[in-house]
């Protein structure tokens, strides 16, 4: 009985993971502007892999005495996905592949454009 419940839980986690992973990649292919495309895989795709890791953890606890080291991958992915999305958005903004970002209210500009003279390309200590 317990094994059946574990099997059902693993199957559900696997199916939801497959759904979210597929939705992330379909969004990557189908959305029309680069900044929209950043959304789909970094959120849905990460959630899908999280579901697969959850399935692996349930499997470990049901059949092999249990281990939590899938949490390592999960924590690492959930921490690094926003950072890489931020880097890719900066690439899009700086290369001018998207419409110019509207300026923020007030006198200042966005932090990623607010570079000092030493940070300009070519002038810095490379």
């Amino acid at each position, binding site marked *: 009985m317990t094994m059946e419940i574990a099997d059902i839980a693993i*199957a559900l986690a696997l199916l939801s993971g497959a759904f979210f992973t597929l939705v992330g990649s379909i969004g990557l*292919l189908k959305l029309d502007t680069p900044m929209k495309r950043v959304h789909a895989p970094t959120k849905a*795709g990460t959630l*899908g892999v999280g579901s697969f890791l959850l399935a692996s953890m349930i499997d470990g606890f049901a059949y092999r005495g249990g281990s939590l080291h899938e949490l390592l*991958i999960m924590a690492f992915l959930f921490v690094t996905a926003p950072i*890489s999305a931020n*880097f890719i*958005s900066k*690439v899009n903004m700086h290369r001018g*592949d998207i419409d110019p970002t509207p300026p923020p209210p007030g006198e200042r500009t966005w932090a990623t454009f607010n570079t000092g003279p030493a940070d300009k390309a070519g002038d810095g200590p490379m």
Partner: protein
Amino acid sequence: MMTLAFIVSFFCVSLAQVLAMVRLIKGPCVGDRILALDTMAVNAIALLILLGLAGGTQIYFEAALIFAMLGFVSTVAYARFVLRGDIIE
């Protein structure tokens, strides 16, 4: 039931990998290509975990961990190279 779930999951993740590869080839700008490579690394982690689950082994876990770390580092390196023309200054 488990076999069906595994078949559906393998099919969906492989299809997701192919779709990301299409975006990698097509991608009109550099950011899209970097994003597609990042997505492919994440999907490869999913495939490795599925292989470990289907085979009932823990061998693939370390490979998935390495893929997670190298995928993030390579994404940051690509983005940094495109932004600054240099990776380590």
